């Protein structure tokens, strides 16, 4: 097995970690000079430490995007070569819309069959669905899928009635029973879609490198209609590949696994990734929730390479259409990532795997830390200045540093796109410039709301409380102001309370709070407004995506099949199918 990470990768990590550490430390010192001079109070030191800590992760994330923008991009070339290994495409489902999921599988299967790869790629739908109504729809949709070409003996469906271990347990159940029949498994989500060429390319890369245990693609969000959904989709299509490319360079052979749109070597996965149930009670004990990061770490521990392939196109997923759905998903991920605290000292993990777990934890702890910085700064305003000597740092310097950290990577990606012609895939450079500006403005407006919601999620998890989100209609993108208010009234209250407090206690500091507080007071309206739109109006102006200008064949095929299945109606359920673990041979 190749030693984990080449010398070059290790040096790059050291250089960038040092750079991020130095930049955040410098920011912390400048901030300390600004607020306390040479006579800082205890509160000043706490504030400077908070800025240093949160700043480090901000700079670290920005550096990945920045180096990604300067790495030459590999171009995915389609090949007629057939993989050697046999692959099963696993689609774990859990109460999702079966017609949509199964029509995507039909589209992938048609491509696989057309390319003469039917003998090498099987599909297995692994249902953990708990709703009997959805389970019935799944059985019906499977009847439809089973009529597809060469489905017999290649497309399977089974439903577990007891969902032990959730998604990780679902996949483990398949591997333990049938994993020996295949060399590789492509793990998809219910909303995933992949070109047959991409499936083949992934299997070929596994064939070519017998030490490769897992290869992760960078899925692009498709099908978004709302302003919020399209902003996320544009970000995933235009910016994420560069951040992933930078990340891939830093991660070396200890890359990420995001739980879907990836291929695994089944024997390696089976040998290394049997997840234990952690001792103690949730949120830290019990089943491992965010299993993907842990599985990647376990494969690396077992000596297998875990790689990421930002150059592989043709990998898609769908995303949340509004901020409430996004926050719900984020809360699940938050709990999973915080649980990783238990695993930081797991025996035998590679140092980089531990760092990756820590990075995941900090991605969520950063929000309460930023909020704590705001709160301590508000309180600091009511104490008199101790009159220390200053070097002369201004608040603008700190603000400019934060803005530069956030904007420079995006600017570098934008400039690269202008010069290498990449922007043409998104319409034109003009459209891309508008889209990036819109993305920056919108994400700035939404940031305080997301920060508050993430903080609440962290606090709830630490206290072992449940969130109690207001229900939103399934598959509905638009959120009414009423629903948005029910989800965010406490943010509005908090923002008005802070503005009121600071207006009375230290009005001179109020202008520094307003850029955060004003968007927070408008939370219900921004949530509702960004959930609107079906994409048609804005398509020609902002957030235009290659999947709209030139949809790939599998996207078109899946839409055709979905339309056809919806038009021709569903097959009637002629016998009891509920509760049936059902496989089609």
């Amino acid at each position: 097995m190749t030693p984990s990470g080449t010398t070059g990768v290790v040096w790059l990590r050291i250089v960038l970690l040092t750079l991020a550490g130095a930049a955040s430390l410098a920011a912390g010192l400048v901030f300390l000079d600004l607020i306390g001079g040479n006579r800082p109070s205890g509160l000043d030191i706490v504030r400077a430490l908070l800025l240093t800590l949160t700043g480090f992760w901000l700079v670290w994330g920005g550096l990945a995007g920045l180096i990604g923008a300067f790495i030459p991009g590999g171009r995915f070339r389609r090949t007629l070569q057939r993989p050697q290994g046999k692959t099963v495409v696993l689609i774990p489902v859990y109460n999702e819309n079966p017609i949509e999921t199964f029509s995507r599988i039909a589209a992938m299967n048609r491509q696989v069959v057309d390319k003469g790869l039917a003998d090498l790629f099987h599909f297995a739908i692994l249902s953990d669905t708990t709703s009997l109504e959805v389970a019935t729809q799944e059985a019906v949709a499977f009847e439809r899928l089973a009529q597809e070409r060469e489905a017999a003996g290649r497309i399977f469906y089974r439903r577990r009635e007891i969902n032990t271990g959730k998604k990780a347990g679902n996949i483990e159940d398949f591997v333990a029973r049938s994993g020996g029949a295949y060399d590789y498994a492509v793990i998809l989500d219910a909303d995933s879609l992949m070109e047959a060429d991409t499936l083949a390319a992934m299997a070929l890369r596994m064939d070519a490198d017998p030490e490769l245990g897992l290869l992760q693609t960078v899925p692009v969000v498709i099908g978004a209609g709302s302003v919020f959904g399209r902003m996320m989709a544009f970000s995933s299509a235009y910016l994420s590949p560069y951040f992933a490319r930078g990340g891939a360079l830093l991660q070396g052979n200890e890359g990420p696994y995001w739980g879907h749109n990836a291929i695994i070597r089944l024997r390696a996965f089976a040998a290394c990734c049997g997840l234990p149930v952690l001792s103690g009670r949730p949120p830290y004990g019990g089943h491992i929730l965010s299993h993907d990061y842990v599985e990647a770490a376990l494969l690396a521990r077992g000596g297998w390479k875990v790689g990421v392939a930002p150059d592989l196109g043709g990998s898609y997923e769908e995303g949340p259409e509004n901020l409430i759905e996004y926050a719900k998903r984020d809360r699940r991920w938050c709990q999973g990532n915080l649980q990783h605290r238990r695993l930081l000292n797991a025996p035998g993990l590679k140092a980089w795997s531990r760092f990756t777990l820590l990075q995941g934890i900090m991605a969520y702890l950063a929000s309460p830390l930023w909020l704590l910085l705001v709160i301590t700064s508000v309180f600091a305003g009511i104490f008199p200045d101790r009159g220390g000597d200053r070097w002369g740092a201004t608040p603008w310097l700190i603000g400019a540093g934060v803005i530069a950290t956030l904007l420079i990577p995006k600017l570098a990606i934008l400039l690269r796109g202008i010069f290498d012609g990449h922007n043409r895939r998104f319409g034109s450079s003009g459209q891309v410039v508008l889209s990036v500006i819109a993305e920056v403005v919108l994400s700035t407006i939404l940031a305080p709301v997301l920060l508050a919601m993430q903080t609440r999620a962290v606090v709830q998890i630490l206290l072992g409380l449940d969130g109690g989100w207001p229900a939103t209609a399934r598959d509905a993108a638009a959120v009414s102001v009423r629903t948005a208010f029910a989800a965010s009234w406490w943010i509005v209250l908090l923002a008005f309370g802070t503005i009121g407090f600071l207006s009375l206690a230290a009005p001179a500091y109020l202008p520094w709070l307003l850029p955060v507080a004003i968007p927070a007071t408008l939370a219900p309206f921004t949530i509702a407004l960004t959930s609107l739109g079906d994409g048609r109006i804005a398509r020609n102006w902002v957030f235009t995506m290659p999947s709209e200008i030139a949809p790939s064949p599998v996207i078109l095929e899946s839409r055709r099949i979905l339309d056809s299945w919806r038009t021709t109606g569903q097959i009637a359920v002629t016998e009891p199918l509920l509760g049936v673990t059902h496989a089609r041979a």
Partner: protein
Amino acid sequence: MKRETFEHFQGLPDAPLAMPKQSLERQSVLFDFFRSVFLPWPREKRLRG
């Protein structure tokens, strides 16, 4: 159309692959030491008071 009756994993290959449970928790010697010094009684008993 032929309909299958209930049978677990009908049609799926019967090819088991062992997935041994991995060890992820490390006993902390320091923690155990402090626990044995300061909490020599079982937690349940302590709670019952």
